């Protein structure tokens, strides 16, 4: 058991340890400036911020926004993608929307979002939905068109109706693509939330970064950066683990 745990997580442990070691060496011996604090100082600061509740507040604010926008964006994107992949005329009609809008980065939409929705939660969630929805739509639609024609033909020859084919063949065959789209969207959500919070927010990891710059709290900046990395890493692992556990049979390999 210990052996198995080690083979699973030992690599990660060594990886993270070496990363912090390199950081430490670079900060202490190479740069040695107050503008680049070593990990020990950052962790000390993180403990302080954890103690007074500030860090949790920021972390929770960002996480909440990401989750709300990501879930809403996926729930909207999946049916639209399925419809686009299934009906060619609809695809033609909707493609201008997706192909036009996906080239306008969510960061560019921040200004509009703030004008429309103010600097509260609504603008952030709008931006996360915006950054999620197109990737999910495109991946879902691509998944539908990638279904092997023989899967559909086999169902037809087995007597399935059109509705049954959609529900029992097209939908499950597309699940791996949907999950991949969601995973990519999740990564984008992190970029977007930081940018949005940098510009307009009262709390969140991005706000923490901005305040750090304003008040020259370099340690705070690094605490926020480390949190972003760890949060992203954790969320992605959880996502991968859920796919493996609950949707393993839909994994792209099969």
């Amino acid at each position, binding site marked *: 058991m210990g052996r198995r745990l080690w083979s699973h997580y030992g690599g990660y442990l060594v990886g993270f340890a070496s990363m912090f070691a390199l950081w430490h060496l670079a900060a202490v011996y190479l740069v040695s400036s107050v503008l680049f604090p070593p990990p020990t100082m950052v962790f000390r600061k993180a403990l302080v911020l954890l103690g007074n509740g500030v860090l949790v507040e920021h972390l929770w604010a960002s996480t909440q926004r990401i989750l709300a926008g990501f879930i809403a964006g996926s729930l909207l994107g999946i049916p639209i993608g399925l419809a686009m992949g299934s009906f060619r005329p609809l695809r033609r009609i909707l493609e201008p929307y997706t192909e036009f809008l996906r080239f306008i980065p969510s960061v560019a939409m921040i200004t509009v979002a703030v004008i429309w929705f103010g600097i509260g939660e609504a603008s952030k969630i709008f931006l996360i939905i915006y950054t999620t929805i197109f990737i999910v739509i495109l991946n879902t639609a691509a998944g539908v068109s990638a279904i*092997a024609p023989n899967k559909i*033909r086999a*169902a*037809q*020859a087995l007597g*399935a109706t059109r509705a049954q084919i959609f529900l029992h063949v097209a939908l499950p065959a597309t699940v791996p693509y949907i999950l991949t789209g969601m995973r990519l969207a999740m990564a984008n959500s992190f970029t977007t939330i930081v940018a949005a919070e940098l510009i307009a927010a009262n709390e969140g990891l991005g706000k923490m970064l901005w305040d750090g710059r304003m008040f020259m709290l370099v340690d705070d900046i690094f605490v926020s950066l480390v949190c972003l990395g760890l949060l992203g890493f954790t969320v992605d692992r959880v996502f991968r683990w859920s796919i493996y556990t609950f949707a393993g*049979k839909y994994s792209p390999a*099969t």
Partner: protein
Amino acid sequence: MSLVRLRNVQKTYRSLQGADYVAVERFDLAIESGEFFCLLGPSGCGKTTVLKMVAGFESPTTGEILMDGQPVTGASRDRGVVFQGDDSLYGWLTAVENVEFGLRMRGIGKRERRDRALRYLELVGLHGQHQKYPAELSGGMKQRIQIARAMVNEPKMLLMDEPFAALDAQTRALMQEELATVWRATQTTVLFITHDIDEAVALGTRIGVMRAGPRAGVKGVLDVTLNGARDRTDDVFLRYYRQVYEMIKDEVAKSNARAD
């Protein structure tokens, strides 16, 4: 009345350049109930096109295809299909769930469809592995699932599109033997597409030889009067082999000449 009748069937495909390609032309064929009909032809001659039309996946450009005297207008449960590759299997379902698929679509209860699926899996020699997913099974096992999946639905006939072509030689020979046994036990009507003379003589009760495409048609049909298990070293077997070989060798040469 024949079970399936193809009358003066022609199929034209439009290529991307806009030029028409006539895959099959003046194609006539009658398949009788209970026979094992092997449609043999060089690669690229339009065998699969014929199967797709009989299955109802594609319709003829001109001519007609009748089953029990009724025109074929689309795919139907009457004609079960076994495809060459494994891409028709549902990777998210286990072997037995794949086999149950048709019964489930018809609303047959869980217990009954499981029983029936297991019976057919047994018949095709896939026991004890029914809870595995297709990706966990070998090529031969996957073809067994396909055969069971088509047969459990009790179609009037079975359409098989080079089902063993992608298997290694040993597995292929074994699968042919098993299919012959299953067929003798069930007497299902089979239309079997192949480019392999040996396979056709080993399995068929009749062999239809196709001309090389384009504009492929039926060159000739041969009755095979071998009963029971067939022995490849038997003189009669070899005589049939030579006979079919004589019929097909010019077509293979033509087909290769065109490909060059």
